[in-house]
């Protein structure tokens, strides 16, 4: 008798695991970069190519590096969230326009609004490569010492902003 009920019991145990698995966020992949210094680079700004930006310029500030592109669909989903965040003036948001055409990037921001304190242009994707970008959008929280404190793959939502990013930013700012 026992052996006939065994498949059912195995299945029940499995369902518990599947249920637990539902709550897990597969996008939140631990990045080898978390806890390490943000890779250094020097890149021109999108709007004024003559001016350059380097992460060193942000020393002493907690800031957000948001990788986006005009061709990226999910970036349009997170755009309103970033706009709302920008209007609260909590921290500087630096946009990294990844593998894009300059005029397309500028046009997108002109049309939809620009949530960024400044936008840097990574047209050949070399900096994105250093940061291990493998899907756009991606967002990094970088602390006062220039360390990457958190990495999010995929769109920023109001939810993960509220639950993860903003508490972390508050904590980092207090340090």
């Amino acid at each position: 008798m026992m052996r006939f009920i065994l498949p059912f019991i195995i299945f029940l145990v499995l369902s518990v695991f599947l249920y637990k698995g539902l709550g897990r966020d597969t996008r939140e992949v631990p990045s080898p970069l978390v806890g390490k210094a943000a890779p250094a680079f020097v890149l021109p700004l999108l709007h004024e190519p003559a001016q350059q930006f380097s992460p060193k310029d942000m020393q002493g500030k907690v800031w957000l590096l948001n990788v986006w592109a005009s061709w990226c669909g999910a970036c349009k989903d997170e755009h309103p969230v970033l706009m709302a965040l920008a209007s609260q003036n909590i921290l500087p948001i630096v946009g990294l326009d990844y593998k894009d055409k300059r005029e397309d990037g500028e046009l997108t921001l002109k049309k939809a609004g620009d949530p960024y304190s400044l936008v840097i242009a990574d047209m050949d994707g070399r900096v994105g490569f250093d940061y291990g970008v493998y899907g756009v959008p991606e967002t990094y929280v970088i602390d006062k010492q220039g360390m990457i404190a958190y990495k999010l793959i995929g769109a920023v939502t109001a939810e993960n902003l509220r639950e993860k990013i903003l508490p972390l930013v508050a904590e980092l700012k207090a340090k």
Partner: protein
Amino acid sequence: MIPELGHFSLIIALCLAMVLGVLPILGAARNNQVFMGFARPLAYGQLLFVGLAFSALAHAFMSNDFSVLYVAQHSNSQLPGQYRFAAIWGGHEGSLLLWALFLSVWTAAVAVFSRHLPEEMVARVLGVMGLISVGFILFMLFTSSPFERLLPAAADGRDLNPLLQDPGLVIHPPMLYMGYVGFSVAYAFAISALLGGKLDATWARWSRPWTTVAWVFMTIGIGLGSGWAYYELGWGGWWFWDPVENASFMPWLLGTALIHSLAVTEKRGAFKSWTVLLAIAAFSLSLLGTFLVRSGVLTSVHSFAADPKRGIFILSFLVLVIGASLLLFAWRAPKVGLGGKFDMLSRESLLLSNNVLLSVASASVFIGTLYPLFMDALGYGKLSVGPPYFEAVFVPLMLPMVFMMGLGPLARWKKMAVPDLAQRVKWAFASALVLALLLPLLMGKFLSLESNKWSPMIVLGLLMAFWIIATLFVGLRQRLAGSGSLMTRIRKQSLSYYGMQLAHLGVAFFIVGVTLVKGYETERDVRMNVGDTVAAGGYEFRFNGVTESEGPNYIAGVGHVTVSHDGKIVGELTPEKRQYNVSGMPLTEAAIQTGVFRDLYVSLGEAIPESDGAWAVRVYIKPFIDWIWAGCFLMALGGILAVSDRRYRIHKKPVAKVDSPVVSIQASVPVLPEGAAS
């Protein structure tokens, strides 16, 4: 208006499916002919309305109706017509609709081709399938309607993922889904047999052809998917052990086991409860595959947007369907008597061992696929297992399986003496071994490699393949021995026998392909200036630069590579690097010259900046890789031959004359000679 009609049709189909799921099963339990009589018309009605819903979505795609959210997300006005149609199943909602459509097609097909079955069996089978439909249609209506509007309408759509804009996508998912959903028939038969309490050989006989047809679709679907990955992903690989690939491979393995154990249950009445369990498990894994792909529990290149609400729904559905079936099994199966007895060495024991090996293989793929989930749930952190795990586990399991696969068709039912069987196969084994040992010594010359390469893995692989072929010949010789002209003797064998042999030959082809491509492939990843040449595996590839070209919805850099062998030009290959207009996504389109003995494969990497037209170019020589898909094709063809067998067609006419349908089947099954195979 039309999308709303589609939505409405889906609601009607849901109502019909609900009635189908209740009335006929109730009728069968109470022996109410009227209730049972509802089963067929309801099955046809359900197909009609799901078909209407599908047509409505197809219309929205073909007419570029971007006021439908799903269309706006997955299509574009520039998208060529055939891909606009294929885009119907390019996303989550549409593929569910395709799934529901196929389920209705299978249900209606059972309704049509079951004239010879007892009424209560038909009622139960259709009823169970109706219940599954209810689950899927509810899922669509509650969480994933493809008919949702986007108001105001988008000016244009976001376009179909470029990876999916390929002839492979037009046919691969439908084939695979036909297979997945097809296992629901075997499942429904098993559940009906459990419900009716009659677990005899007859239900096995009825569900065999259905199972085989589903398995054929699945084999083709998986083969196409693997071929698609080979030429579309640009890495030259043909199988990645990706969770979604595994999701289709697990039910395939169990389906293969099921086909074989059904044969034993039908012929010998043995392992009945095991067969029922396999039928339940094969379909459960199909459902689980859906859960894995749709819920975002595992990450994969194939994943659609993750949505926890959907995950909860499918999980509940899964628990309900599988849990209820397994409880029913636990309740009814103990009452099933044991079947015919058999000895330690007999065809039954060999088939049973193979069944166990296939199930273990399926379980090990399952564990590997869900390992990250288990570890994470238990708090051990996020990690995953890759191809090394699967290869390490899979190959040792396949070794004894292939060995027994050679013996099975030669062994007698019930009882076989070891010396007798050894006597039959000793020459087959000896010749397979000699060939496997010697062939690698000639391979280098044959494939024009710099040197011969002899490795134990290559010999082992070849031994497995030659063993199958050699035993196949032994079997044929045994079968065709006797008097009369050879032609009549060849014709006398049943189609299902040839089907089995052909499918087994397919496995041999498959093993040859896997072994030789792994053992002898050459790969060069080089930076090439215009005019540069690179040598690989006896071939010389000359890079003539990249030109621009424009497709219907993309612009492409087309590389020109001339391939020569011993100074003679073999061909011109034109790999492409495409940039799709709407999504801006780059796509590598490999150029492949296929051949029986080798593929030449060139794909473009990236343009090298600040150079004079230089590119990163990837060049592969893939010996015998097409044998992998030829093997899949032969397996599928074998399945088709097996279901075309006379005994499945024979009931059509005589049925009308006989009173009891059960008698008619038994009378119409031709008497097969001793040792007849599946």
